[in-house]
């Protein structure tokens, strides 16, 4: 009964963060909810399509070679990796650092029920990430090898039940470990950022290596099959899905069940102590120091930067592009010799500068620091509202923080692209100006969307940073605008030169920035006052 009530609370919190009422107490309209559902479907479609393209190539090759088990083993690994990377830090924050842990533990509720209800929400998250890989993989396999119930049932059981449960337990255990490691660190947010980037880099390395493995497999399949074949559970996973081998499915279920039981025993025993552990970092004694007195505008900017630095989830979700841009710059400079000859290839030479530019703009649109910046004020919003600072100054500080963090890396990447291409003055200017305009656009758009969709009802800052309509809308509208110049080039590339497309897109970005600026200065200011 208690558990049921806790599940209901968790689902209500999830629903509220995605579609619920905001501080204005006005529930979302049906149109808004439908729009949000459409956005979620678009998100899944967007990523699903890219994954389907990869799996489609693999499925035909593997079914022809009789290596269906390897196809499913690799899809399982990808699914597990995405679920783990996507949920491990959420597990740390949601299980052990939720602000309502004390409240719930003070009630006549068993700690294990609190833990279980929190893990239930993580399972939903894992399932969403898992389906993102599983659905395209299954569609691609059915397209290549045909539909067979004997294959489909075990695959469904594995990808919808066993793998999400396994990932849930492993990410919960890792979350526990990370909490224990970082609990007494003074710079724990930086450590969390570094660890997250290592996890992400490892995952992307694995995904990028997959293509190489496929090529190797085509030429010489034995070594990879042998390597993966040495890991029995992977083989069982593959055989259960590809051959409908129910004995393999049983073996895998036993292993997953074992991990679940042992993991649950460890988590259940330690949960109360871990969730109530308030040791924190070692105490630092205050020593009076001379301070800089700064004007209010700079004080607000400093406050934004300190908030960002203290929140790993905010850094990783809001400024991923700022990490990607220097990597892209280094990649361009290192791979210069391989890329330059492509400029001379008919068809590609004309398209390459535009693609490079759009790549930089994509990185800029990935930076969405302002999108949750109002929501994360949470319960301390009263401070900004009671202090003698105008909404314009507050919003301005948030935008400046976004530009300060996100602009230098994309300019660096733009400069690297200019060094690589050695283009004319126009393209050089575009390589710097267009990513800058996109960065400004995503900053302004983030404020616009967060003022329209604020969410203050969160129990952990990670929720405000990761979920919510403003974050998704800012990212996808930002990425969506990049399709326009590509479409123009693909449809009218023969009559419109790429330089005109680039200039036109720059003009559009500037126009959108001006419109957003005007809205924020007028209606946006009023919206902030009314929050």
């Amino acid at each position, binding site marked *: 009964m208690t558990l049921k009530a806790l599940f209901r609370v968790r689902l209500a919190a999830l629903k509220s963060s995605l579609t619920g009422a905001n501080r204005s107490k006005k529930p979302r309209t049906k149109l808004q909810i439908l729009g949000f559902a459409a956005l979620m479907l678009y998100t899944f479609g967007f990523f699903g399509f890219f994954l389907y393209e990869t799996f489609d190539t693999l499925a035909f090759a593997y079914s022809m070679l009789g290596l269906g088990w390897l196809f499913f083993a690799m899809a399982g690994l990808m699914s597990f990796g995405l679920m783990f990377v996507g949920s491990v830090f959420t597990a740390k924050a949601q299980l052990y650092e939720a602000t309502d842990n004390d409240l719930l533990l003070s009630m006549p509720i068993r700690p294990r029920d609190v833990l279980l209800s929190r893990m239930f929400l993580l399972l939903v998250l894992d399932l969403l990430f898992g389906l993102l890989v599983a659905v395209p993989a299954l569609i691609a396999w059915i397209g290549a090898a045909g539909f067979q119930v004997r294959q489909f049932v075990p695959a469904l059981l594995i990808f919808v039940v066993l793998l999400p449960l396994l990932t849930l337990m492993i990410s919960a255990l890792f979350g526990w470990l990370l909490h224990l490691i970082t609990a007494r660190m003074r710079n724990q947010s930086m450590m969390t950022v570094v660890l997250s980037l290592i996890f992400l880099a490892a995952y992307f390395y694995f995904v990028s290596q997959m293509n190489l493995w496929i090529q190797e497999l085509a030429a010489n399949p034995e070594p990879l099959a042998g390597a993966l074949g040495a890991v029995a559970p992977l083989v069982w996973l593959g055989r259960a899905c590809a051959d409908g081998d129910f004995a393999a499915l049983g073996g895998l279920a036993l292993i997953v069940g074992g991990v679940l039981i042992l993991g649950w025993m460890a988590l259940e025993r330690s949960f109360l102590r871990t969730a109530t552990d308030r040791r924190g970092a070692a105490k630092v004694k205050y020593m009076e120091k001379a*301070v800089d007195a700064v004007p209010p505008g700079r004080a607000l900017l400093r*406050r934004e930067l*300190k908030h960002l630095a*203290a929140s790993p989830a905010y850094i990783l979700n809001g400024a991923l592009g700022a990490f990607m841009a220097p990597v892209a710059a280094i990649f361009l400079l290192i791979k210069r010799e391989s890329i330059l000859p492509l400029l001379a290839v008919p068809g590609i030479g004309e398209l390459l500068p535009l693609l490079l530019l759009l790549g930089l703009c994509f990185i800029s649109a990935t930076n969405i620091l302002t999108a949750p910046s109002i929501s994360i004020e*949470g319960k301390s919003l*009263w401070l900004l*509202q009671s202090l003698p600072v105008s909404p314009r100054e507050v919003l301005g500080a948030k935008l400046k923080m976004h530009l300060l963090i996100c602009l230098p890396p994309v300019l660096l990447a733009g400069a690297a692209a200019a060094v690589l291409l050695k283009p004319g003055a126009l393209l050089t200017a575009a390589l710097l100006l267009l990513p800058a305009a996109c960065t400004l656009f995503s900053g302004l758009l983030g404020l616009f969307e967060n003022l329209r969709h604020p969410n203050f009802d969160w129990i952990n800052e990670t929720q405000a940073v990761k979920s919510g309509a403003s974050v998704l809308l800012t990212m996808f509208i930002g990425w969506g605008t990049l399709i326009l110049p590509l479409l123009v080039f693909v449809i009218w590339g023969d009559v419109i030169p790429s330089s005109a497309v680039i200039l036109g897109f720059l003009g559009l970005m500037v126009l959108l920035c001006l419109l957003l600026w005007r809205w924020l200065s007028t209606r946006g200011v009023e919206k902030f006052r009314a929050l």
Partner: protein
Amino acid sequence: MLQINHLTKTYGDKKAVDDLTLHIAPGEIYGFIGHNGAGKTTTLKSCAGILPFDAGEIKINGIDVSARPLEAKRVLAYLPDNPDLYNFLSGIQYLNFIADIFGVEKAVRAERIRRLADTFELTADLAQPISAYSHGMKQKLAMISGWLHEPKLILMDEPFVGLDPKASHLLKEMMRQHCDRGGAIFFSTHVLEVAEKLCDKVAIIKEGRLITSGTMEEVKGDASLEDVFLELEDGHDA
């Protein structure tokens, strides 16, 4: 110092504050009493420029809160009942942030922080992140930040909740000293004994409407404030 004239604030169909008029003069500690949901916090937040209101006028030191909010906010401090401060800052970073916003000069702020933090015995913890503070420590930090720019008017919502007896005593002394220097304090409380001893004037509000107000003697006469409050509440119901 604070003039509230015919203040009305509604949430949907519900009138949280209904035609409230109160005047608070310099030097006065003014208590604001009422049951839960009576409209105390809404009134205080409206005075602090946090909540826009539907009708009426609020002036602080002659400055209209709606027309010139920033000027009005520069002469006041607002301390809410639950001090949700910036957990990502340390105590000293928070105080410096507040001092920067109010333009308190370096030397002045250093002296005030030293004096106020010593008074509340918080100096040793100023380098700690606010996230590591207890509720009482956050209350104390909020008090220090409230006094840091020496406001003319201090608005406080249940200021004694969560404070230890010593800090509570200190706060009462500071409130009196502030008003002796010509400032004014308008605060809500459920602790009627404190209000009775501390306040120069008191107002009782029920369901958004003012039931009575005046000097402590005018409101309670020879009875205790608790008896008068309960009687007025019941009488109003009848």
